[in-house]
């Protein structure tokens, strides 16, 4: 069949949904182009009824008229995979935004698409497989260094069966479209290139098995790693009302997490926030590699004013790129901000399709889509025995800050760690505003579980005393209870709270957390003697100051040791009083 035959005509337009009459066949979720004058508007088939297909258009639909031609591509919405993805800034459909800017100027131009991977750029290719080797899809053919990583060139995931290598390119400088090997399955010979494509809505599953995510992903954020940890290959969510510090938290995660690759999916949020990442990351050093932070980062940016349908795609685009790098045995962190905007994009489309709405007009299939997205995270053992993982962290923006709403609830069912941000804490300037009593995690902390339980108990009791004091006043509270309250406040102030803008405080590797936590615990466990409440309060004020000085001195320096000695002296004073 020639391409000409797969055409249709527009019969209706409603917002970004276009109905198309077709004669031959269409594929659900295939890409189609609506031809408006000289521009071709990318769209996706999302429903077929009789001989009419409904398309969601990834662009503004202005100017489309009934009778306009629609070309069907016979391909599902896909992304390009290959070396050169890192450091890039893509829109939801994987168009590199800086390249679009070169061609179109200040504004995004409708119908302008740019190839995600540079066809001219050459990569230092080294073959790994030899002629005669039998390979399965996802097996390594060769490699090319991409920044600090060995970028594995693999047999395309979409091919099935076993393939025998019949030719390999010698080591050399090659572009992503040059053949690097020829393989045959007995009946057909194909070229392997560094570039392959994959449909975004289908998970890549070329691995041996999924493993239980056991190792803690160290984020350098104390309240996460110690209290509500995330595992490599796990999932977590950060719901919170506006102004609670979701974005600052996501930035801290993207900067300081100890993973190989970070993918930031700015989905339907402010452009300004992406700009900060975009402009600052190239100048920030990754403490683990000494290279620019941008070298390990990919940004997928479909901000709130960009077309809504592409916002829906952006989540899938980002997770597919994550899966690709996982296939190389790397640990990937995907930060999606915000999944609520993605859900809203689904809701808008569902409304146009006139589907029967679920709660708050979200589509009834919202939960299964949310679950499907988070389930693409995981720790896997690849065919060659190496391990790779994807950790997904989704920000959620619940309407009115109310966690009872459908997106938060659907997310809570499928994540392993819940970091609930509270307005109460952010108003009190207690950052990060992760609520210590409402959040939870199913993963393993960097500190011992029994120690953690004691700390949690102090937080709970402290909160009870605090509630009590609001009724009976400070004068009606026994001194012992008051001390418990002061201890919980100390734990909050010097351990849960952390400044991401202070270099020393922000840098908290696992080793340091274990060390510092033990010290805080020593204070919590200590049985201090106080004459009265004022005495206790003044003691804990001094203790807080001493710990804050400790937090703001760099790990393993003289000032760190000195500040620690000051704390030890204070503890002794408290015990001997």
């Amino acid at each position: 069949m020639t391409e000409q035959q797969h055409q249709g005509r527009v019969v209706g337009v409603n917002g970004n949904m276009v109905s198309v009459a077709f004669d031959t066949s269409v594929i659900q979720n295939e890409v189609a182009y609506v031809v408006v004058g000289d521009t071709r508007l990318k769209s996706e088939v999302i429903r077929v009824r009789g001989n009419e297909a409904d398309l969601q258009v990834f662009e503004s639909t202005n100017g489309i008229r009934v009778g306009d031609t629609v070309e069907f591509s016979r391909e599902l919405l896909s992304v390009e995979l290959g070396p050169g993805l890192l450091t890039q800034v893509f829109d939801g459909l994987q168009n590199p935004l800086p390249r679009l800017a070169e061609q179109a100027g200040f504004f995004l131009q409708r119908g302008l698409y740019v190839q995600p991977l540079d066809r001219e750029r050459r990569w230092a290719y080294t073959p790994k497989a030899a002629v005669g080797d039998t390979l399965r899809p996802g097996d390594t053919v060769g490699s090319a260094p991409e920044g600090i990583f060995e970028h594995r060139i693999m047999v395309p995931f979409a091919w099935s069966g076993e393939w025998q290598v019949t030719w390999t390119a010698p080591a050399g400088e090659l572009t992503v479209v040059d053949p690097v090997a020829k393989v045959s399955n007995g009946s057909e010979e194909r070229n392997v290139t560094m570039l392959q494509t994959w449909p975004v809505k289908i998970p890549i599953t070329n691995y041996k098995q999924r493993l239980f995510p056991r190792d803690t992903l160290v984020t350098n954020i104390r309240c996460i790693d110690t209290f509500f940890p995330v595992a490599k290959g796990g999932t977590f969510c950060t719901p919170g009302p506006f102004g609670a510090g979701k974005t600052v938290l996501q930035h801290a995660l993207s900067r300081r997490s100890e993973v190989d690759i970070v993918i930031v999916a700015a989905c339907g949020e402010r452009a300004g926030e992406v700009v900060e990442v975009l402009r600052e990351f190239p100048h920030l050093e990754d403490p683990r590699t000494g290279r620019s932070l941008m070298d390990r980062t990919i940004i997928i940016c479909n901000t709130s004013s960009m077309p809504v349908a592409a916002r829906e795609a952006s989540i899938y685009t980002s997770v597919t790129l994550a899966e690709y790098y996982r296939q190389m045995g790397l640990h990937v962190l995907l930060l999606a901000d915000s999944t609520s905007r993605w859900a809203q994009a689904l809701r808008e489309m569902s409304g146009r399709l006139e589907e029967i709405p679920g709660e708050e007009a979200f589509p009834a299939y919202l939960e299964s889509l949310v679950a499907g997205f988070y389930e693409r995270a995981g720790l896997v053992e690849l065919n060659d025995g190496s391990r790779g993982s994807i950790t997904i962290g989704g920000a959620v923006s619940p309407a009115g800050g109310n966690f009872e709403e459908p997106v938060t609830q659907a997310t809570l069912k499928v994540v392993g760690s819940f970091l609930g941000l509270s307005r109460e804490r952010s108003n009190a300037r207690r950052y990060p505003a992760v609520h210590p009593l409402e959040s939870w995690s199913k993963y393993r902390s960097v500190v011992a579980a029994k120690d953690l339980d004691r700390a949690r108990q102090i937080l709970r009791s402290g909160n009870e005393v605090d509630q009590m004091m609001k009724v009976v006043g400070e004068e009606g509270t026994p001194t012992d209870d008051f001390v418990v309250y002061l201890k919980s406040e100390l734990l909050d102030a010097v351990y849960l709270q952390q400044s991401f803008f202070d270099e020393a405080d922000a840098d908290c590797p696992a080793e340091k957390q274990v060390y510092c936590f033990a010290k805080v615990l020593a204070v919590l466990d200590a049985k201090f003697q106080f004459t009265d409440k004022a005495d206790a309060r003044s003691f804990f004020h001094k203790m807080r100051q001493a710990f804050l000085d400790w937090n703001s001195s760099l790990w393993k320096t003289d000032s760190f040791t000195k500040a620690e000695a000051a704390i030890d002296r204070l503890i002794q004073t408290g015990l001997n009083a």
Partner: protein
Amino acid sequence: MRKLYHRIIQISGNVITVEAENVTYNELAEVTSTRGTSLAQVIRLDKGRVSLQVFAGSRGVATDSQVRFLGHPMRVSATENLLGRIFSGNGVPRDKGPALKDNLIDIGGPSVNPANRVIPRNMIRTGIPMIDVFNTLVESQKLPIFSVAGEPYNELLARIAMQAEVDCIILGGMGLKYDDFLTLRDTLDEHGALSRSVMFIHTAADPVVECLLVPDMALAVAEHYAVAGQRVLVLLTDMTNFADAMKEIAITMEQIPSNRGYPGDLYSQLASRYEKAVDFEGAGSITILAVTTMPGDDVTHPVPDNTGYITEGQFYLVRGRIEPFGSLSRLKQQVNKDTRDDHRAIMDTMIRLYAEYRESLEKQSMGFRMSQWDEKLLRYGERFEARMMDLSVNIPLEEALDLGWQTLAECFEPAEVGVKTDLVNRFWPKKD
């Protein structure tokens, strides 16, 4: 000459449906009825049936009224001639000046490429201490003023408009009371700001569809000026009326409502307007200040709630003052490090002490005994409110900072305020 259509097959709310051919999505048409001619916009195509939103409303439209399609979407004339002029939501002059037809540009244009944005870096001085000192307004910021009916939010907008150091002001009024429109116009006029302003005004009595056009008209013009290198301040009042107009149309079109009757795309619709705020590298900028009245003083209402997620902070206008708690300028950190060394210290310290004052006030009202420290705080709080929070205060930032130090010195000892010693040595007022 374009073809005329006479067969209107459905009239429902402000939406009419006509059978027509060769019509493009979003294009404009003229609907001529017994009440005169009104513009209308195509909002749905379904085979041969074209649904149009009639700007003047469908009252008086007959089933055989005449519909003429114009072949282009809504446009606005973007030239220097707009300055000093007042238009209605659909671009018709409200003053006695001529209609403008030069250099027509489409409204609701595409989004700015995020890769072309720069990190905001310029402060906008307003002379209002609660803004300049505590929540600095930054060029290219988008900020709503959250308020409730009866508060002087339009007065605040007008004051900022008059005092802000920008090249031109574009005012979009939505559902304005006619009196408020007159007040705004006269205030700008009195202070000589009218000649650098453009107004798109939809009053409460005008057809509701025109309300929907106001932000797009205002922002299209703003974008044109900004690309040409001007620093533009866009004032929108009141975005809740805009959202309510969207709700009205959506329900007429039988769209499934999501939250309290608002359409599911409320967030995207608001965001596509607010995101027009931008600082162009090598050209001008757009800053947006928008009044959002909170129905029932409820910040979780869908309109303020969605707005809060979109904008870069918010000012709460409560009892005629900008509330220090809750109000936030997310971009202030970008600029307040470069103003004066003591800016951040004064900002943090004065707010912290004011929070303590509020606690003391609460204790006092509950009848607890006031300590010496409480007395100091009470004295401080009163002065803070009079010198900083009162909206009639109009002083430059540096003077406000000095006044801050003076207030601290009048009420406290240097050791009590918790400011770094070197700043105290430099700025604490010396006793004569």
